[in-house]
Each structure stands twice: as C-alpha cells, then as structure tokens.
C-alpha cells in the first residue's frame, strides 16, 4: 500500500530523512515513533506529496508519487485521510460542514453526503454536536470531528500525525479505539506518536525513527526511547 524506497529528504543542510525504506501492507496498523525531529512528520508530508523527496522513490497503491503531476495531487489526497495534532478544522464552519468537506470537494450528491455524515458522526459520537462550531467543542470532540472528516470519503489510508498530542489520556484512548475500529473496517492506518502507553498496549507494528533513519521496525513492537 505504501512503499518508501531509499528515500532521503534534505531541507538545506538538514537531513530530515536519510535513506529510509519500508513497506506498509493494506489493512495494517503502524505506529511511527521517535523523538522530535526524527522525521515522523516528514514521512506524512511526503506521502501527501506536500513536497518531493530529495532522492528515492515513494509508491502509494503501486503508483509512483514522482510521476503524479501537480494537477493530479488533489486526487491522490482524496484517497488519504489525515488527522492532525492541531485538528485543522475550519473555524467558520459547523462540525457537520467540516466533516462533509472531503465529499463536497469531489462534488458528491447531497443526499449521499447527508447519509454518510450522519453515519460517520454517529460512529465518532458527535451526532448531537453537528451544528456547533469548532470553538464550541472540547479538545477530544475536535479530534473526533477531525477523524470523522478524515474517514468520511472512505480513504484507503488514514494518516494520523500525533493525533493524541493535545489530549488527556482518557480522551486519547477514545480516539485510538476509534482508529482501531476504522482499521478493522479495512483502512490502512499510519500513526505518528509519542504516546508510550498507547504504543505499548496495542502491540501493533512499530517503526522507530532516530535522526532521520529507521532504528527498528518490529511487528507487535514496543515503544523504545533512544
């Protein structure tokens, strides 16, 4: 599903990723851990084609990202749901309007949008918050709204960049449980995180990064500090 082949990304003289190779299969749940500046966010941004690798190849669904013209980038991004640490919700739209955005940008049918939105808001437990604005929600609710937006268009891949970074432990667990649920429904989940408890309890695959390199890649891994 996702393949990094000897990928290096430099920002000027700083090497964010250094010759990184890994492959993530369809339906996997993968944690990417490592200290700040290890390159976790760089990986998610490379997958979204926010920028190009300095060298190496990235393939999503067997498609070489380098060969996707910039005009086709929106199509790539529609296949990938993203959850951000800082939620990135549109403050001037209601929860409902935020959640349906991915369907709206592809011009989906109105009744279909409504149906999907109700279904997904129920899944994340925000049905009664649909008409509120982001400023009226608590942190955990914001992240659930963000998650609902990420999966409403049924993407093949769900990227989560520190989704629990701003949340308390109990709320963090709610989010993780939801992500597990979504993973069970067939979506490949890649989650960059610092959260030791979560990584250690779930015993999923863990890719540990350090200074831009893969230090360890374990099935049923544990969090390790470098």
């Amino acid at each position: 599903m996702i393949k990094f082949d000897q990928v290096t990304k430099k920002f000027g003289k700083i090497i964010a990723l250094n010759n990184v190779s890994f492959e993530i299969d369809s339906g996997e749940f993968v944690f990417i851990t490592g200290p700040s500046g290890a390159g976790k966010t760089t990986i998610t941004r490379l997958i979204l084609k926010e920028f190009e690798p300095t060298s190496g190849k990235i393939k999503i669904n067997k498609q070489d990202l380098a060969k996707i013209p910039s005009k086709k980038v929106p199509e790539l991004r529609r296949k990938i749901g993203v959850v951000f640490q800082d939620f990135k919700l549109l403050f001037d739209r209601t929860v409902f309007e935020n959640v349906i955005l991915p369907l709206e940008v592809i011009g989906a049918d109105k009744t279909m949008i409504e149906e999907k939105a109700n279904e997904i808001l129920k899944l994340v437990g925000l049905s009664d918050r649909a008409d509120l604005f982001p400023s009226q929600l608590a942190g955990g609710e914001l992240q659930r709204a963000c998650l609902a937006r990420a999966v409403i268009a049924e993407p093949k891949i769900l990227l989560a960049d520190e989704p629990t970074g701003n949340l308390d432990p109990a709320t963090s667990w709610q989010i993780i449980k939801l992500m597990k649920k979504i993973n069970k429904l067939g979506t490949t989940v890649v989650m960059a995180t610092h959260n030791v408890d979560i990584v250690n309890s779930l015993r999923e695959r863990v890719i540990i990064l350090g200074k831009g390199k893969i230090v360890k890649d374990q099935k049923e891994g544990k969090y390790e500090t470098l």
Partner: protein
Amino acid sequence: MKHFRTAWQHIRRSPYQALAAISVMILTFFVAAIFIFIASGSEAILHWFETRPQVTGFFKDEVTMTQVDSFKERLNQTGQITEIKYISKEEALAIYQEQNKDDPLLLEMVTANILPASLEVATNDLSALGEVAQIMREAPEIDEVIFHEDIVSSLSKWTSAIRKIGLGLIIALSIFSLTIILVIIGMKIALRKEAIEILRLIGASSWYIRLPFLLEGMFYGVIGALIAWLISVILLLYSTPFLISFLAGIPLFPVPPVFLALVLLVLVTGGLVIGLLGSLIALRRFLR
C-alpha cells in the same frame, strides 16, 4: 451553487471591504456612463449638423422683395444649391414665438419688425457651403452670415476632446478599481490562508479554492456597474426636459431604450472584466 454561497459568505463577513470595492466600482462606471452619454450625444449632434449642410444669410432691413428674388437667382446659378428657402420677418416671428412660447416676457418685447428676414440655403455637401457663404458675405443685401461649417468644425473639435478626456479618465479609474479589487481579494486570501491550506490537504482542486474568490471579484464589478447605470439613467431622465430645451430642434430625445440597454451591457461587461482580472491577479500573486 455551493461556490456562490461561499463567495456570498466571504462578502457578508467583511461588509466594509465590500462597500469600498462596490463604491469605487460605482464611481468608475458612473463616470464611464456619463462620458458615454456625452460622447454619443455630441456625436449625434455633430451628425445632425453634418447631414444638414446649410448656410443662413440675414437680409438688411431695407432690402426689397425684388432684390431678394434676384439674389436667389444669383445663388441658383452656382449649380450647388439643393434647397433655398426665404423666411420673412413674419415667419421669423412665428418661429421665435414657438421657441419661446413658455416665456411671455420675451414674447412681449419682440415684434416682426426687429427680426430680420433670412435665406436658408442647403447645398449638396459641406464643401460647397464655403462658396455659397462667400457669395453671401460679399453681397450688399446681406447683413450677417451663419455658416454651419464653423459650428461643425468647432463641434468636432469638442467631441474629440471630450472623447480623449473621457477615455483617459475611464482608463485611470479602471486601473484604480482594478487595484482596489486586487488588494481586497488579496487581503481575503491572506486571511483565509489556513483554511486554503486545509482544503488543499483534504484534496480540494485548485478551482474549488479559487472559484469563490473569482465570483467575489465579479460580484463587486457587476453590482457596481448596475448601480452606476441606474444612477446615470435616473440623472439622464431627470435632466431630459432641460436638455430638450437646450438642444432645441435637434432630435436626441427621448433616448432610445436600446441605447440604454447597450450602455448597461457595456458597463456590466466592464465590471465583470475588471472584477475577474483583479481577482485573477490577486490569486496569482497570493496563491502561488
């Protein structure tokens, strides 16, 4: 439809910017409309004079009817005359009374005696007028000669001056409005930078992001043009009675509705173009 709603939301949430954009558009298109009216009006007046190559000679008071007839004969011999019309003192008074029928004071003071008899001569074309006018000026029977060519030439000078000034002013104001639209749309793009980034990340196409800004620019242009047209037409209708008496005899009024519709079309198209261009430049400049 969705994009119209988004654009309308952008406009509603910053009413003062919208007001600034629309006012400058109104100013631009109002000036444009007024100059279109003046230019077309003076063009029509000029055309009216040009299609009536005419010279009028006023006889001295002591001239007798036989002298008039022999003078007419002399003019006819030039072979350039299409029409020749004698207007007696009484006829002149009737014309004068008709023109000033609303002003009894002016009527009271004038009798047929103080108005001169005259000869209105029309020729095949403008160039022949010169020759006829020259004959009249040299004739001892004639007191004064009014020559259309003078009017035509000074009028055409005025028309071309009006056209140049109008065009210059319209171009300057258009650049001014374009800049205002560009700045306002640019500000809105800057304000929504984060939202635009989010939309990009969830796979919105570049047109999905741009369209509301383009629609907003065009909205300002079209609304400005519409209001400007409305104001100028009301002003024109309001001043019609005055203009009719000022341009006595020249059939300009009522202004045909087709002409007003055409002006509306020109203004709205101009509004669309300025609005669209301003937003496009802003998008290029501020949205990579």
